[in-house]
């Protein structure tokens, strides 16, 4: 009973903090923070599926978030028809030949058992397949990138509505996660961590360099959004009335309304994801995952397909992270491969999961809110405090400069300290995982 | 001693002791807590209650490496050598605590286990099972212990090598050490034992001289016959 109340109290406390931000700083800031918290919550749930439930140490969250963002481009951006006609066919052929090569490889690997020949055949398949694929791939890519490189230089997308793109984010992330899980499934923890870290870096490197895909570091902006534009609604009568009644400009009010629309959408997604994962948790699937996590050797001895289960958790968790990455790109309205840094997309999510309480989804959500709030406020709040302190020091003095510069970097120190302190003194996090023996209620 | 690995205790109040120059053997069914008792004496798991006394001094609160300094040595059943180091280096490790007498002790170890002298520059991981056991014992002896504990020294060893092993163990005891052995091959072990302890479910069940236990019908029936 008390623990149930504790959870609610913690969430209420979080809400209170956000309201305070709205009152004392600005409502726009509060809503911005809120929206990013929700997105981070979705990503935390994804990580929690892998770590808290399945005990897998995936340090490649960044890559899957990036793939989610890519999906938004590929699914919802308008197609660049000219580029498609120039390079599309070649690209498709290359894709097909690559797929055929992979299938032939897998088939040959299983079919030929004689080690001597097998090596040669596999090598031959790879070489031939590679040669054919690249003969179609490179000219197609050159054609695409050559078309109006300043404005486009990429293939664009399918022009589908944004929520479809979010689902596409899950799909794309899951599709990539599956072979990754298959290949890394047998690796030990250390190696799994390093491998996933490396793979996520490769994914981001590819996104940064393959301009034909998503313009690489030239970035794509102006991505379609599922909510109205501020400029469009500013002139609406009810906006104007609301603005004057709240003593704000119409511009501010329209901005707030748009953010609220996003918030609504994001909350729906969060609720869906939460419902899905909680249901799985209570189902036999969840029980089995916990059993495997708690005693893998025993589970294997009982004949459970441990690797298969791990794979499922990996794919599911990555797909959820993909949704989060997709939502983020839609919110930003632009896809910036260069912004995918391990610190921001991998380690911070980990801190959220651990601080919130790994092993349960409510904890993941709360952790996301708390840590993201701390991260943002460490910057704005820190700058504000620094500003207050610096007011007392003369302009341009060395100390003032140091304080102003330091605020940004102290964030990292604070985050690291939070992580270590929580692991040391409160390893179960804010919302500990309840052991599923029901006592009383 | 009372203790275990956390959860329910494995040792439920058993007592084992051995004097210098004697061989004590601990036997019992699987899960009786034989290896656990040995690990507890070595300090590799915590006792809920009880104490460990060596040559009159209590070593209960000391960590493992300090107990070794005090004169206790353990040869674990598995993982009992340093696989990437040579035979010579393995023995050197044992000599860490008694550097000045190292050369002399090594000579004694080589006398006791001539095969080790032969293969002294070989990587320990490449030795056969029986040779490893000898090396493991040699390493323990290099620490010049007053009490030597052996956890199933004949596990996975062929029968004739087993006899040889017990011969060597007797030789070690004759050097003046107190030797404590945990064994599955109860019958053979009790033959060389001065004292035998039968442990069942973490408690002393029978205690007596090796010969007495061998001849006692109850011990024979209850588990000496259970082993093939």
């Amino acid at each position, binding site marked *: 009973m008390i623990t149930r109340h504790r959870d609610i109290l913690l969430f209420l406390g979080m809400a209170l903090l956000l309201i305070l931000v709205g009152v004392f700083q600005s409502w726009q800031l509060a809503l911005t923070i809120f929206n990013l918290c929700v997105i981070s919550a979705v990503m935390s749930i994804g990580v929690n599926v892998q770590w808290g439930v399945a005990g897998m*140490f995936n340090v490649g969250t960044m890559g899957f978030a990036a793939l989610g963002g890519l999906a938004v481009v590929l699914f919802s951006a308008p197609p660049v028809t000219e580029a498609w006609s120039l390079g599309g066919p070649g690209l498709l052929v290359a894709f097909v030949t690559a797929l055929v090569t992979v299938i032939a490889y897998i088939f040959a690997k299983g079919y030929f058992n004689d080690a001597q020949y097998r090596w040669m055949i596999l090598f031959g398949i790879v070489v031939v397949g590679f040669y054919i694929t690249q003969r179609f791939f490179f000219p197609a890519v050159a054609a695409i990138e050559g078309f109006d490189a300043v404005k486009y230089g990429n293939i664009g997308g399918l022009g589908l509505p944004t929520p479809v793109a979010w689902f596409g984010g899950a799909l794309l992330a899951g599709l990539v996660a599956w072979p990754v899980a298959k*290949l*890394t499934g047998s*690796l*030990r*923890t*250390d*190696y799994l*961590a*390093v*491998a996933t*870290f*490396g*793979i996520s*870096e*490769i994914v981001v*490197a590819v996104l*940064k*360099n393959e301009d034909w895909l998503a313009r690489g570091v030239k970035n794509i902006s102006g991505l379609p959004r599922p909510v109205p534009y501020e400029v469009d609604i500013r002139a609406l009568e009810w906006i104007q009335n609301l603005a004057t009644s709240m003593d704000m400009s119409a511009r501010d009010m329209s901005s707030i309304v748009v953010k609220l629309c996003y918030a609504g959408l994001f909350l729906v997604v969060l609720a869906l994801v939460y419902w899905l994962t909680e249901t799985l948790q209570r189902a036999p699937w969840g029980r089995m995952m916990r059993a495997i996590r708690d005693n893998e050797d025993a589970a294997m001895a009982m004949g459970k397909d441990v690797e298969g289960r791990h794979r499922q958790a990996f794919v599911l968790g990555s797909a959820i992270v993909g949704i989060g990455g997709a939502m983020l790109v839609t919110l930003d309205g632009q896809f910036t491969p260069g912004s995918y840094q*391990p610190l921001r997309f991998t*380690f911070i999510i980990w801190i959220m999961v*651990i601080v919130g309480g790994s092993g349960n989804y409510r904890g993941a959500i709360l952790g996301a809110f708390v840590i993201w709030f701390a991260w943002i406020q460490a910057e704005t709040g820190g700058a504000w405090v620094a500003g207050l302190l610096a007011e007392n020091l003369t302009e341009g003095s060395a100390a003032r400069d140091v304080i102003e*510069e*330091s605020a940004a*970097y*102290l*964030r*990292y*120190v*604070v*985050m*690291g*300290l939070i*992580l*270590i302190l929580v*692991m*040391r003194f409160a390893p179960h996090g804010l919302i500990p995982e309840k052991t599923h023996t029901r006592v009383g209620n | 001693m009372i203790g275990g690995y956390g959860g329910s205790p494995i040792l439920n109040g058993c007592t084992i002791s051995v004097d210098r120059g004697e061989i004590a053997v601990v036997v019992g069914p699987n899960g009786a807590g034989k290896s656990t008792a040995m690990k507890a004496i*070595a300090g590799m798991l915590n006792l809920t209650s009880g104490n460990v006394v060596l040559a009159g001094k209590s070593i209960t609160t000391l*960590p*493992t*490496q300090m107990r*070794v*300094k005090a004169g206790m*040595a*353990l040869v*674990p059943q598995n*993982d*009992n*050598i*340093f*696989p*990437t*180091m040579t035979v010579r280096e393995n023995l*050197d*490790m*044992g000599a*860490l605590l008694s550097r000045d007498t190292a050369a002399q002790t090594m000579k004694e170890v080589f006398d006791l286990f001539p095969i080790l002298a032969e293969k002294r520059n070989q990587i320990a991981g490449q030795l056969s099972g029986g040779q490893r056991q000898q090396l493991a014992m040699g*390493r*323990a002896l290099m*620490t010049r212990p007053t009490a030597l504990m052996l956890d199933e020294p004949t596990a996975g060893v062929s029968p004739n090598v087993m006899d040889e092993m017990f011969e060597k163990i007797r030789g070690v005891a004759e050097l003046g050490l107190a030797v404590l052995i945990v064994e599955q091959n109860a019958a053979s072990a009790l033959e060389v034992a001065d004292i035998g302890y039968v442990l069942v479910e973490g408690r002393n069940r029978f205690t007596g001289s090796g010969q007495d236990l061998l001849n006692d019908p109850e011990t024979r029936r209850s588990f000496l016959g259970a082993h093939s």
Partner: protein
Amino acid sequence: MTDILNALVHLTNLMILPGLAYASQLALGAMGVTLIFSVLRFSNFAHAETMSLGTAFCIIVTLWFQQLGISFGFLPTALLALPFAIVLTAIFLILSDRMVYRHFRRRNAKPEIFMILSSGIMLIINGMTRLLVGPKGRIIDDGERFLVTAREFKEWSGLAEALVIKNTVVLTIIIAIFICSVLFWFLKNTETGKSMRAYSDNRDLALLSGVDPERIVFITWILVAVLATLGGVLFGLDKGYRPFVFQQLLLPVFAAAVVGGLGNQVGAIVGAVVIAFSEIGLTFAWKRFFSYLLPADLEPTSMMQILSTEYKFAVSFTILVLVLLFKPSGLMGGSQR
């Protein structure tokens, strides 16, 4: 004949020497990672940042020395500052061990826990280095830049291609070889070194041989401080110091350690060489080299670059992933733990 010489000089100048220098820096980093893995039994995500921290300390001391007017002649002043930087880094590492890792070590925590903790330490060092040195970084390379300049070489050899020998490159290679030799000697011949090897081979048995685990841990962190600081400073002298550059070193360093076999010191060096030369070789424009060697009509027209330089970082990650997938114990075989 001159063509062959030109080709060789070109290759040495732009690939072999830089490759050796980079390999030396990676080797120093990888040996630290592998040492932590074999003794402390976890992958230290904070290692690249540790190298950065050591370099940051070195920069501060160097700047202080430069202000005091101390210099080292034709060698960089940073070399004088090195011992101080090593001491400061060692203090930090030992403190972080006492306050963070030791608690969990005593409870036999799982390796994932240590990795998460090390990422926390990574974040802390991240902030610390920027606070110490500022985000923009510094260049502390003073003293003579070049041992042999392009002009000097061309005059001496009469070749079209010049072999430029930078001070820092020579320093890096010499210091790396020296430190590696010392480390290997230490591990093989000294009692502490043997105890460390024993401890990483079989922890329980080491305890049963009277080895004091806390002392081993202490010595390990000191060695790590030496390796990381040296590697970082040499890298910083070579390429200039900017904090984020070290973040990008994390994967190549880990790649080198894993490729060689985590836990295997020789493997760390082998892995470093593989990674360094792969990165440079796969993004190298081979055109000029081949044009010297091939007759005129066979000369290549394209730049003959296998991968664009933007993919340089991806090379080490890809090699790492490939090794993990096909031979996780590495080329030389790592410790199994």
